[in-house]
């Protein structure tokens, strides 16, 4: 494929293209170029036949039946992420970091106010590392937290989650980190995911998930972001496996789901209730599941409308 001609195809296809003089000069450089360009433009038009008609906003990908896959982009970006981390670390070293950990027990909610005016609300079973000498940094090691960040473009607030970095741009956002999975939802402002690598901007109403299904961007209802703070869990086509994790964190109990139940999806709002019996008697039928208490005290979510224990 002729790279130069392809460049011109892409340029001239832009609705705002106006550098026709430069295009003329390129064409005049070699009489064969016009034909190459024509052929590629025709190939471009032929592409219509195989373009998937989905809208641009990627749907909540949980219903994506495709085989699990890890995004190539993630690995491609790995070097840059590592480099970015090295940079962060070395800067912090110069400023002498003074790290400390904050953890919450399952079922416990805790609010942290940082010196810069940023507020972090921690859900249950969450651990966070903060730096006394740098109020613009947090590391979410496990669990879930909602960040209401005071924006300072000269000194953006950064949250690291595993090897990913989320950088705020004036923002309220919620991050869940469970096992190897990371999910973020943005309810106000904008967050940039891995600003030095993929640099995916997430404005309010967008979310990002990085789990066994790969790295995906999706729509989220801003009102549903960090809804646990008001005693609700709000879902749009969420897998039950994820909901079980959320319930465990918020209620301080162990919730498991059978493989069949884990793969099911739910859309709706569930009210949290400190009393697990009350909670499941309301929530389980809503999800089309049954919840039974196991001998070890954990709750098991099962498919179907079988008899309740």
């Amino acid at each position, binding site marked *: *494929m002729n*790279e130069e001609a*392809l*460049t011109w*195809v*892409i340029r*001239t*296809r*832009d*609705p*705002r*293209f*106006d550098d*026709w*003089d430069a*295009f*003329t000069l390129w*064409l*005049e450089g070699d*009489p064969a170029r*016009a*034909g190459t360009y*024509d*052929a*590629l*433009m*025709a*190939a*471009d*038009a*032929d*592409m219509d*036949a*195989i*373009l*998937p*008609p*989905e809208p*641009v906003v*990627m749907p909540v990908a949980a219903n994506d039946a*495709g085989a699990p*896959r890890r*995004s*190539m*982009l*993630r690995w*491609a970006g790995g070097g840059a992420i590592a480099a970015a981390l090295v940079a962060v670390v070395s800067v912090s070293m110069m400023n002498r970091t003074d790290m400390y950990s904050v953890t919450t027990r399952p079922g416990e909610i805790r609010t942290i106010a940082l010196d810069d005016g940023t507020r972090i609300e921690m859900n249950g079973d969450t651990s966070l590392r903060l730096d006394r000498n740098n109020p613009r940094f947090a590391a979410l090691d496990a669990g879930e937290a909602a960040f209401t960040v005071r924006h300072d473009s000269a000194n953006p607030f950064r949250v690291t989650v595993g090897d990913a970095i989320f950088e705020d*741009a004036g923002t309220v956002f919620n991050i869940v980190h469970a096992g190897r999975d990371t999910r973020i939802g943005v309810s106000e402002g*904008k967050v*940039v995911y891995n600003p030095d690598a*993929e*640099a*995916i*901007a997430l404005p309010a109403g967008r979310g990002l998930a990085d789990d066994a299904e790969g*790295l*995906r*961007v999706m729509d989220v209802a801003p009102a549903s972001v960090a809804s646990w703070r008001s005693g609700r869990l709000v879902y749009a086509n969420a897998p039950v496996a994820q909901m079980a994790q959320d319930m465990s964190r918020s209620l301080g109990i162990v919730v498991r789901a059978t493989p069949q139940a884990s793969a099911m999806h739910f859309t709706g709002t569930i009210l949290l209730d400190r009393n697990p019996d009350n909670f499941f008697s309301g929530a389980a039928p809503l999800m089309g599941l049954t919840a039974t208490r196991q001998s070890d005290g954990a709750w098991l979510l099962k498919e179907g409308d079988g008899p309740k224990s």
Partner: protein
Amino acid sequence: MATGLSAIFMANRPALLRFLRARGAGDDAEDLLQDMWMKLEAKDLGPVSDPLPYLYRMANNLMLDRYRSSTRRERREQDWAEGAGGVMADPSDDMAVDDRMILQQRLEEARAVLRDLGPRVELIFRRFRIEGVGQKLIADELGVSLTTVEKDLQKAYRAMLTLKQKMDTE
């Protein structure tokens, strides 16, 4: 024709002629320019916000049409020569069930190719190629540089054109 556009056409006639020649129109360049003039007169366009780029775009489209009809004619003649012959049916006419299945399968393949490029490349390509959004706007939307958008588009185009080529030779 709006007087503004007419004046701009006349003022840029030599540049447009040069462009058509560079585009491979050869001796037909003058005639094509005349066609353009007639089309502009017949259409009675309202005010055009960017008249000169509009005229270039029109000239470029004329050349693309020419290329398309010449390759179509070649293909038809070839079909005749090979005895496949006859009138080519409009591909959008009643499609046989097998053809529909093949189309579905191809859409699936294309979907997979796009997905494997990663979410940002896929998003940028869809915005640009399916929704027709300009690169500058996409760059602003995503908070990335224009160069990044250009590179991602090239990556996506290469992958999709290669796929299309592969399908056509199957």
